[in-house]
């Protein structure tokens, strides 16, 4: 019996069970993803293609990728990392330092961003290897806040002002360069990154590591009995999650053309947690949907900074108190109720 054949407790994996859902014909199943990708790419055009729309969809893509980083740990490992802003900000800062201080191009700065956050994740992952659930959260949270104070006070990283003047994102392309001057020109890049990250997550969900992670979450004793090294799995998944958030930071540094310590603030932490939890954990497209909802509220229906804090906090608290399985949980409850009645 291989690991992937192990039964998983159904009641604790909302969104994983297929029973009850419609069985799609093979042709539809195969065509589903290309159609979804094309439609997704055309969303800003379908919404009118204004500057504001493009800015919003680019931010949705970036914040969704950021949320996928913490999603890997939160949904599959079942641990609450409160330190993922460190990887998101680490990617953005590494990019800004490489681009502004050393004049590196986007691809070299991408490598730098991934390298920096991977090292951070290895250090933090190994240091917390023996900690239990809430101690892990305490320590990762402390790491993020310490990161904030260090970055705010470090001259090299620009202190509280951050680093300004990140150049335009210019990628080598056929016949010269593709330069993203506007959000509309940024959108193809952001979209490709988003699609690639979703593909990585889809692959991870089917991988041995993904299944093992889920098993260590559901039943660590069983996992140990079957020869799974629980600690090793935890560190591997944690380290895998960091570059995903780092890539989002890389893109954000170019999109915003500056980085500042606010990347490490509670805002982004709460945002990424809410983006995963609001739709329901362990859904492939969950973080994307969550990021889309939250970004749309903040960009197009904002009530002002402080009131938006109340909205974000209230949304996260309300969903956890009322429907811990997220919006999907609410849908399931409604479906069940109507089924009982019919």
């Amino acid at each position, binding site marked *: 019996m291989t690991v992937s054949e192990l039964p998983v407790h159904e009641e604790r994996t909302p969104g994983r069970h297929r029973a009850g859902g419609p069985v799609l014909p093979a042709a539809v199943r195969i065509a589903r993803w290309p159609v979804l990708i094309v439609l997704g790419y055309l969303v800003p055009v379908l919404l009118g293609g204004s500057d504001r729309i493009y800015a919003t969809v680019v931010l949705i893509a970036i914040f969704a990728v950021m949320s996928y980083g913490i999603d890997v740990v939160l949904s599959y490992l079942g641990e609450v990392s409160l330190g993922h802003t460190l990887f998101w900000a680490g990617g953005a800062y590494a990019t800004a330092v490489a681009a502004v201080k050393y004049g590196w191009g986007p691809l070299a700065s991408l490598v730098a961003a991934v390298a920096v956050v991977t090292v951070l994740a290895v250090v933090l992952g190994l240091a917390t290897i023996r900690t239990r659930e809430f101690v892990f959260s305490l320590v990762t949270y*402390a790491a993020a806040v310490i990161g904030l104070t260090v970055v705010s006070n470090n001259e090299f990283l620009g202190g509280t002002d951050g680093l300004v003047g990140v150049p335009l994102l210019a990628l080598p392309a056929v016949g010269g360069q593709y330069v993203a001057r506007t959000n509309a020109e940024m959108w193809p890049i952001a979209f490709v990154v988003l699609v690639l990250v979703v593909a990585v997550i889809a692959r991870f969900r089917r991988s041995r590591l993904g299944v093992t992670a889920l098993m260590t979450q559901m039943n660590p004793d069983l996992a140990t009995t079957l020869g799974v090294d629980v600690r090793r799995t935890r560190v591997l998944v944690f380290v895998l999650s960091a570059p995903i958030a780092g890539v989002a930071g890389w893109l954000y540094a170019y999109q915003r053309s500056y980085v500042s310590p606010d990347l490490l603030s509670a805002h982004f932490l709460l945002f990424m947690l809410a983006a995963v939890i609001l739709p329901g954990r362990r859904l492939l497209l969950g973080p994307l949907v969550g990021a889309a909802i939250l970004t749309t509220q903040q960009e197009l229906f904002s009530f002002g900074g402080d009131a938006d804090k109340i909205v974000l906090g209230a949304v996260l608290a309300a969903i956890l108190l009322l429907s811990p399985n997220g919006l999907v949980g609410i849908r399931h409850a409604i479906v069940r109720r109507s089924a009982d009645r019919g």
Partner: protein
Amino acid sequence: MNVLDQLVNGLALGAGYALLAVGWTVLLGAARLVNFAHGQLYMLGAFVTWWATTSLGVPYLLAVPVALVAVGLLGVVMQLAMTRLVLEQNIVSLMLVTLAFGYLVQGGAALVFGGNPQQIPSPFSSANVALGSGRFTQQDVLIIVAALALYAVTFFVLSRTTIGRIVRGVAEDPKLAQLYGIDAARVYLGVFVFAALSAALAGAVIAPRSPILTSIGFDEVIITFLVVVLGGIGSILGNLVTGFGLGVFVALFGAFFPPAYSMAAAFAVLLVVLVVRPEGLRIR
């Protein structure tokens, strides 16, 4: 700069750290609950004290109980909203919910109290007490007295009284405790409100030392985490010792290196301790 000055400063700092952490220690150790909004409750305690002294014109010593009542009521509301999660002992959800509550409180406080730094007017801040060549303000003395008194009372109540036995019983096995006719929900409520009150007290007595912002909760809670994890989860005496130790460490570190990095240095110590001795100092 002499070492005695820094030791004296470190004792006052450390008493503040210990005072800030005592609620968390009891919450986690005696009831296996967490509250990530602890820092924001500290912030609210400080701001309500400021508001009561400046807007209502209440003297400082009367403003402190006003802050305690306000934050205590908020604690009751929070805990009642979370009763189901608490009875399920769903620590992961509790962490996230309290984190969300904290952010909500921070946004609300920013709307009500504004974004400017404020100074709590305390008559004790300007009065000095000399100890050798070291200098205390009376406010520092107040912090140390408050910390020692609260630790003594907490230690006594938890280890020597019926209330302490009930709390420990519920922490050990909530279902069994309920079989003996103990209302676990009420015990959790009591412990949670105690933790909220201690955070508010910490805010009211520590905050006059420096200007306050509605965003301070995010940073302050780190001190709590450092003390709680380093001192050993749930070890009251360990936390008191760690609090003072951390204060002296931060004061001495600040004398020789940029003070902005003192918390980062303390955190580095924590990482090392976690690798070498994950259970913390844990003094029984």
